[in-house]
């Protein structure tokens, strides 16, 4: 059921119940256009998990999707607080105390950073952002190309600050500064890493201790392809991998 919850009822979420839920799974979305592009796969994942007896909550951070506020006010700390609120909502709705999170791109980084505050028992991460500074540089470059893309605009948009937005979303100065400090630091809560990113070093190589399980999807996901920025993400194998992971009884 769709609902607003949390302080000021500012967070939008969609809860999918199970009769006697085996596990509670919180789906943490990525940010910006990656969130809109991955909506379909989040819906498919939520359905697949609910059909297998798991209670699932999808939600939007404040300033994104259907949640309250404008995107310019988004901050990393607010996203962490939203994960905590969403986990509490999921506990309340499902009656389960143990919550596992699934996150994509920055959603994976946010979930991993929120493990302690949201008391998550596990994290499944899909293509986390390894280096926030590099991510910002990539998004800025994408935006700079977009502004002069004459297949999109009749005339190049030199009237727009290329650093003010990333493909349709204005991150704001605070979030930009915070993202510059983001590094992928997988902790012991990481239970599955799904790697389909073609252009960055594989996430498993960037850490000292490999996570318990890493699944490499050879067909790359086009996160940074300018021509694909309005295409739905259809990563074959991700839904199956995550549902199988939970069916095996892993956190």
């Amino acid at each position: 059921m769709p609902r607003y919850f949390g302080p000021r009822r500012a967070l939008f979420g969609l809860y999918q119940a199970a009769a006697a839920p085996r596990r509670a799974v919180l789906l943490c979305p990525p940010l910006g256009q990656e969130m809109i592009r991955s909506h379909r796969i989040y819906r498919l994942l939520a359905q697949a998990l609910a059909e297998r007896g798991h209670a699932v909550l999808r939600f939007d951070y404040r300033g994104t999707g259907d949640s309250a506020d404008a995107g310019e006010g988004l901050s990393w700390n607010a996203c962490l607080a939203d994960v905590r609120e969403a986990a509490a909502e999921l506990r309340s709705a499902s009656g389960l105390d143990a919550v596992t999170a699934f996150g994509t791109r920055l959603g994976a980084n946010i979930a991993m950073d929120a493990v302690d505050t949201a008391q998550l028992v596990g994290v499944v991460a899909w293509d986390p952002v390894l280096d926030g500074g590099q991510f910002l540089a990539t998004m800025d470059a994408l935006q700079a190309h977009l502004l002069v893309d004459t297949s999109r605009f009749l005339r190049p948009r030199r009237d727009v600050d290329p650093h003010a937005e990333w493909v349709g979303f204005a991150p704001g100065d605070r979030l930009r500064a915070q993202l510059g400090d983001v590094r992928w630091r997988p902790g012991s809560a990481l239970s599955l890493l799904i790697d389909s990113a073609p252009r960055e070093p594989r996430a498993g190589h960037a850490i000292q201790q490999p996570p318990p399980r890493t699944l490499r999807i050879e067909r790359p996901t086009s996160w940074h392809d300018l021509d694909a920025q309005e295409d739905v993400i259809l990563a074959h194998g991700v839904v199956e991998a995550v549902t199988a992971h939970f069916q095996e009884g892993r956190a």
Partner: protein
Amino acid sequence: MNETAHRFGRAHHLVGIAGTPATPAAPVGVIVLNAGLVQRVGPFRLHVGLTRHLNACGYPTLRFDLSGLGDSGVDGSPRTRQEQVAADVTDAMQLLTSQSRCTRFVLIGLCSGAAHAHAMARTHPQVVGVVFLDGYAYRTPGFWMRHYLRKLVRTSPIRLLKALFNRVRRAGQAHDPVFEVGFPPRAEVAADLKDMLGRGLQLLFVFSGGASGYFNHARQFRECFGALACDPGVAVHYFVAADHTYVLGKDRAALTGIVAAWLRGRFPA
């Protein structure tokens, strides 16, 4: 923010967000349809900003997902897509009536949403206004003249000769579709618009620079539809700087301002 989330519809299969103003005073409710396959938030969250701004202006709104899109399911009935859309929008009107007591509606649609809004406005008695974002229009001699004049001015002679050669070479081949949404014949659309205006509907057409494959000047609407363009129920805006999906925040803000100003003028709160 005064938004509520709903699962609604004849099969309880639709998901939408109703926004109600603090002091509802508007005579119409506004319903925003999906743009292509994008969920109800709209491309780059366009529909969220737009509906919240309209709420602040006093208009109740609903952004929702049509059957099979976004978070909505399907009702399982053997309907055509057009029948399904008509039933979905009727369900959406009932929901917004229950939330705001509005019984007359303005539909807003971008791209395929504009095509769906057109189909609804043809027949549904509760539709009193439509905002068509990159909706139906047709290439005219004026379109082609402007199109080639721009190419002449901007393109080197060698590239121009190559382009002409390629055009001649392709002349006998099948043509690519002009627009992803299928366009009915111009005469049919003109007859529909005439009928809508005869019933007193208010129509706003906004064409972006992203529609330059079939629309490239504000006066083209008149070239397409003749005297209909002068009807007091018609307003046309050519937003040449913007792209088709309003990727830039300043363009989304400008579009929101255009729609809000038109609503205030045609359906004052």
